[in-house]
């Protein structure tokens, strides 16, 4: 009997040890999140927290699955909630609001109401084209419906892919919901013009696009920063990108991080968000994830300066409007293009 009592006591002691502040902070993110081990090690050395990265697929899937279990999260921080998904996540009460002291270095127009989430990077979803196959890229979106561009475009499915959704929103911004020629007319014409729809951005860019993979389609929905990525990864090395950005139909996406409501490690989660806004992390954002830093005063690497630019007038749709209409737009898109 005594032995049992000791055992029980020991078990309780160990259980109590497990209740202490965990020393790992879990970061739930999409498949395209990338950062160097050196930076992560620096974070561990500075804060005492190890980062465990949990990947859940494409951004939209990661966010939706988190929403389905909101309040009972599988991680402490989520990164990769973008403009198109933010209002849905906030509406589902996914985050614990947190105002990072680093936020003062970020332009106020990027801040989120009540600091529900924290902006980390921004990029523009733009059509890319293969300069070798296409000497005469379209200058306006409507060109894509002409016979000259038949069978040239590949688009990731907006119901699955966040750049796909961004492009859909750009077309809704461009053509509107009413009038002689609505976004649905445009997509109907694209369908007639043999647009290819594939599952996710990776399949579109590396699978179907002629400029980056084994595909045969010279126009693809990707990012304004994709051409510098081509230069950086070129083997053998090249000076200038063989792909270019079409400035018509770009959509500005900001990527946010947030503390997941119900986290077991709020201190670690906040430290990780501070770290993602730090100068060191923001400096690494362009060459590791091919997007632009949100922090002011961070120098861009040379390859970005020569091979891309921030589009002058990207489409911006009010997040409230996105939230109110997203399901309907997607359902109408599925009906117009897939069925």
């Amino acid at each position, binding site marked *: 009997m005594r032995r049992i009592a000791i055992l029980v006591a020991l078990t309780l002691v160990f259980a109590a040890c497990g209740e202490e502040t965990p020393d790992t902070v879990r970061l739930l993110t999409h498949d395209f999140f990338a950062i160097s081990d050196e930076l992560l090690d620096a974070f561990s050395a500075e804060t005492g927290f190890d980062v465990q990265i949990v*990947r859940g697929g494409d951004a939209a899937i990661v966010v939706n699955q988190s929403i389905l279990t909101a309040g009972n999260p599988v991680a402490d921080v989520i990164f990769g909630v973008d403009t198109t998904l933010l209002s849905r996540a906030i509406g589902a009460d996914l985050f614990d609001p947190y105002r990072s002291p680093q936020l003062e270095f970020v332009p106020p127009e990027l801040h989120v109401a009540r600091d529900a989430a924290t902006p980390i990077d921004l990029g523009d979803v733009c059509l890319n084209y293969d300069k070798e196959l296409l000497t005469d890229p379209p200058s306006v979106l409507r060109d894509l419906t002409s016979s000259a561009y038949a069978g040239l475009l590949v688009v990731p499915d907006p119901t699955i892919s966040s750049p796909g959704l961004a492009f859909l929103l750009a077309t809704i911004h461009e053509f509107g919901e009413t009038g002689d020629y609505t976004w649905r007319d445009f997509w109907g014409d694209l369908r007639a013009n043999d647009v290819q729809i594939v599952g996710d951005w990776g399949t579109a860019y590396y*699978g179907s696009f002629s400029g980056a993979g084994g595909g045969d389609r010279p126009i693809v929905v990707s990012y304004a920063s994709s051409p510098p990525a081509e230069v950086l990864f070129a083997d053998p090395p090249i000076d200038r990108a063989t792909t270019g950005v079409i400035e018509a139909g770009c959509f500005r996406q900001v990527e946010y991080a947030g503390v997941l409501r119900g986290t077991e490690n709020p201190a670690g989660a906040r430290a990780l968000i501070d770290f993602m806004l730090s100068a060191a992390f923001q400096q690494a954002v362009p060459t590791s994830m091919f997007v632009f830093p949100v922090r002011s005063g961070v120098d861009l690497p040379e390859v970005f300066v020569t091979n891309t630019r921030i589009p002058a007038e990207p489409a911006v749709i009010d997040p409230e409007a996105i939230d109110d209409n997203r399901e309907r737009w997607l359902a109408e898109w599925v009906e117009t293009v897939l069925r």
Partner: protein
Amino acid sequence: MTIGSVGWPSGSRRFCAEMRPSRLLTIPALVIGLGFFVWPMLSILSTALGEDPGRIISLFGEHGLRSVVWFTVWQALASTAAALVIGVPAAYALTRFDFRGRGALRTLLTIPFVLPTVVVAVAFLALIGPQGTLGIDLAGTTWAIIAAHVFFNLAVVVRTVGGLWSHLDPALEGAAATLGASQWRIFRTVTLPLLRPALAAAGAIVFLFSFTSFGIVLLLGAPRLATIEVEIYRDAALIFDLPTAAALALVQLVGVTAALLVYSGRQARSATQQHLVAGTAARRRPRGRDRLWIFIALAPALTVVSLPLGAILVRTLAPGGSLGFGAFRALAAVDPAVVDPLRAVGNSLGYGIVACVIALAVGLPAATFIANRRSGSSRWLDTLIMLPIASSAVTLGFGFVIALDAPVDLRTWWLLVPIAHALIAIPFVVRLTVPVVRSMASHLREAAATLGASPRHVWRTIDLPMLTPAAAGAAALAFVISLGEFGATLFIARPGGQTMTLAIFRLLGPGNASRSAALALSLVLIAITAAAVALLERLRAPGVGEF
């Protein structure tokens, strides 16, 4: 103390009376069935009807969803027809003739049915996908889906139809031949009518599997083609339109239940008294032209089965024509934060074992209760246990995530995955073990009791040894079902709890390197499944049925 612990009340008063099992045996089934099936389904019902009760009606007004329902029905009919047309001749050759390699061919035709649907899709992508072995890209077409459904379901036709065929009395056909009927006329007027129950049963099963097909359609039909099951997933997980997803789940639940009822009603009516003979008596050695007929009858089935299996083997062992195990190297090179192959294997095995334990802990007592009682309560329990078959895996997973947040938030509880797997396996466990329990000779039990054995002793020395083979077979089956489960797991698995089927699905995403990694992991999953099936075959109690 003995009452209930073994199920049979003791006491000299009742010892010659009918042995009635305790109601306590039903408790595990009631807990699991009500908590993890009925409750989630009610949540779906309230989600579907809660916000807008007219949603279900308006569903059918939408062209897109109407076309999904229509596609679901017609591809299931086409798959069923194709499986019957290809499977029946194969069943004929395999049951009417005795030739060398017959057993091996029969096994080969059965392999696809135990493969996880994700692996079936991987095999067809390797064969007729982008840069496929055959050189034509049919991915995203109905052809690929129907071909995969035929591949998967041929075993159902061959086993079910062949099972009855091998027991038909050849004297009937002999008599017709003596009276001068041609071969074709004999088949049409004698054999076919006798086979009708088996054809209907096989057709119904193939139709149901194709109707609720998920993994195959999700991977081979993307992005344009969707069954109701795939559309539920899209609406719930991607578009986030929960009311529409719930309404579709309800439509599917009602449709499948209706189909099952019609089917079992027909079965009961068309059951014919037949004179059946031992299986081997109907088989003969091929003579003369027979060999040609056997070849013609088997060729389509063997082509459909062996090409995709071959494509997986060829691609895994030599992707891109290079020698060696390139696909396995690709698998080892995958970012462990996306897919950790060893962890996925470990998770799958762990979930499989837990699912197996739950399925037996629930299924065996329930089977004992059902087999020993012929009352209303046993029929109710039987229906409750069979219900998850009528729903679908995706609906189950969806129900879990929307229902299990209160009173205790269980949505990310690791045990949900094996519980879902067990729910899908329990109907099979019960169906496998009820006949065995029924056939257990009660006089042995009574004799032992007369000789003074306690109920516990009777259970241990008489019931248990008789039940063990069937229970072991059921355990292996539950394990195989858990290994291959995909639709429910996709909803409820946590990122760290990735199973092999989820890992394969993830690997089919971007890039070609991970596509060959998906092939390699598929091969591992096939190997583990094959080992479990071999165990199942070995343990299967004799006379438990053809399937």
